[in-house]
């Protein structure tokens, strides 16, 4: 098992290396002239030259890339152009709020979706099945921004059940600020997840081993909850793990809208101020998380499905 994990980690290095190259190309080479972005149009010739030198943009590209690579490896991403803060500090400050929003919201969605999808499959071809399906599909047809705007307007502004925006880093006082974004997060993703898990479970319901289970005299409930569910966990886990990186960046709209100083909010600010170093740092971290999520999902799948060996 450890050899397998070690091997997979070794395999990650070329991918992450590739990510740094692509990020560098996207931002430093393709990404327009950062100085122009930073200075705006009215910067004088001399000022631009000084700034270019200051930011080390006048050095040859390979050298710039090595500098960026060093930053990534040492997790020290230098200073933000907009606020001149040390980026690494900003990141560590941002992780707290982001995690406390997305992790609970994420797990509530998963638990609710799995329960709902089991319910739908159990009553398949019935009215409940049709109704829930229509409800989920309708849910996926509304943009996340509409959910956010309406959520804020009704729950916070009109009925005042939640604060309109803002955040308090106090360990127990933050939840009142995070409650509304969490509800919106669940509302946005539940439709898509339920449909996804429903098809994964339905895929298993028609397999031969289900007929064998029924031939033993088991009730339909046991057949579904024991035999079918455990087999459909594999596709479900893979799809959950694909969502993990969105935990950080996915909350972007929510954090920006509700003024929560998480990583998502940071990206929104960085985009507004074309703060290249912050965006590059976030890109690197987002992709490292994605790659680790893939590994974690393979390991989790191997716990559920004995056929996955570690040759």
């Amino acid at each position, binding site marked *: 098992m450890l050899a397998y994990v070690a091997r997979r980690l070794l395999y990650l290095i*070329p*991918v*992450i290396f*590739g*990510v740094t*190259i*692509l*990020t560098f190309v*996207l*931002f430093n080479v*393709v*990404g*327009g002239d950062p100085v122009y*972005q930073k200075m705006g149009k009215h910067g004088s010739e001399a000022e631009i030259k000084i700034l270019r030198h200051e930011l080390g943009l006048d050095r040859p590209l390979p050298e710039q890339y090595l500098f960026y690579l060093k930053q990534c490896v040492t997790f020290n991403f230098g200073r933000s152009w907009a606020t001149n803060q040390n980026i690494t500090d900003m990141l560590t400050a941002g992780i707290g709020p982001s995690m406390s929003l997305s992790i609970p919201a994420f797990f509530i969605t998963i638990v609710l979706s799995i329960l709902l999808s089991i319910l739908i499959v159990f009553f398949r071809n019935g009215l409940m099945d049709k109704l829930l399906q229509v409800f989920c*599909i*309708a849910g*996926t*047809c*509304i*943009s*996340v*921004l*509409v959910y956010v*705007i*309406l959520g*804020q*307007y009704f729950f916070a*502004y009109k009925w005042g059940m939640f604060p309109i925006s803002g955040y308090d880093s106090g360990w127990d006082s933050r939840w009142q600020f995070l409650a509304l974004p969490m509800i919106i997060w669940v509302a946005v993703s539940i439709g898509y997840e339920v449909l996804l898990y429903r098809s994964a479970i339905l895929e298993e319901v028609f397999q031969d081993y289900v007929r064998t289970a029924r031939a033993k005299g088991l009730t339909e409930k046991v057949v579904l909850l024991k035999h079918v569910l455990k087999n459909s966990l594999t596709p479900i886990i893979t799809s959950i793990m694909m969502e993990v*990186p*969105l935990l950080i*960046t996915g909350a*972007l*709209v929510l954090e*920006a*809208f509700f003024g929560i100083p998480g990583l998502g909010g940071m*990206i*929104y600010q960085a*985009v*507004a101020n*074309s703060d290249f170093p912050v*965006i590059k740092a*976030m*890109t690197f971290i*987002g*992709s*490292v998380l*994605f*790659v680790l999520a893939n590994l974690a999902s393979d390991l989790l799948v191997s716990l559920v499905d004995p056929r996955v060996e570690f040759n």
Partner: protein
Amino acid sequence: MSTGTTATVEQNQVSSAGVSLWSDAYRRFKKNKLGVVCFFIICGYVAIALLTWLGLLGADFSVNGPDSYAAPSSSHWFGTDIFGRDVFARGLHGTRIALSIGLATSFIAIPIGVTLGAIAGYFGGLVDDFIVWFYNVVESIPDILKIIALGYAMGRGISTVYISIGLTTWVSLCKLIRTEFMKHKRRDYVQSAMAIGASHKRRMFLHILPNVFHIILVNLSVRFITAIKMEVVLSYLGLGVEPGQPSWGIMIDDAKLEMARGVWWGLTCASIFMFFLILAFTLFNDALREALDPKLRNK
């Protein structure tokens, strides 16, 4: 010498011409009422897009009217926006932008995804390893951040939206096509094509591609949904189409300020337009997938 005695008796041989898989899929699709209705809804949207593009419908979308934020009335079904422009007309033009985004991104993403997936799946070996490494790298960077980077490179505008979404959303199709090519490469009908001396090119494009084409079709309709929803988020991030353009993304983005002032019709109009288009695409897509699924043949 004809082995007449073993000539077979073919029943239900009504017409002499054969029923191809495509016509069989079409027959099955027609049976799915919901799918057909949604297909016509989509045609309706396409008609709106064409008419607005030719200026025959909602031509006054950019004409500044006298009273800004007028409530919905008989003259303005969805009222007017801050510049007094007719919201309903802008909604109609939003259809043109939404469909054009869906189409343009598909024209960019599908060829990339299919060619890379086909080459990786068919040839395997080092080529496959390189392409897998490449799409793992591209996939690892969250889509939003890739689009932001490309947005900077090309500046704000609809062509940027086309290219940035197009260049970032080809990975899922590439993976699908790769697995399909790997599966079909080993199938007997491709082995026998090899046995009669068919070249790699012929085997790839004459044998395997037609048999995986239904996946591309289904992927095409899914692409419209993701592209339309992505446009809204991009507008919010200030990376979407130019502010003046009548896109649903801009309308919804503007609504975040309007709602506080009780101006609900801008958001409602854009959301309703979007809701029915995405709903139509989703249901049409399910019906299409069922009709095209080779396993469910002449059921």
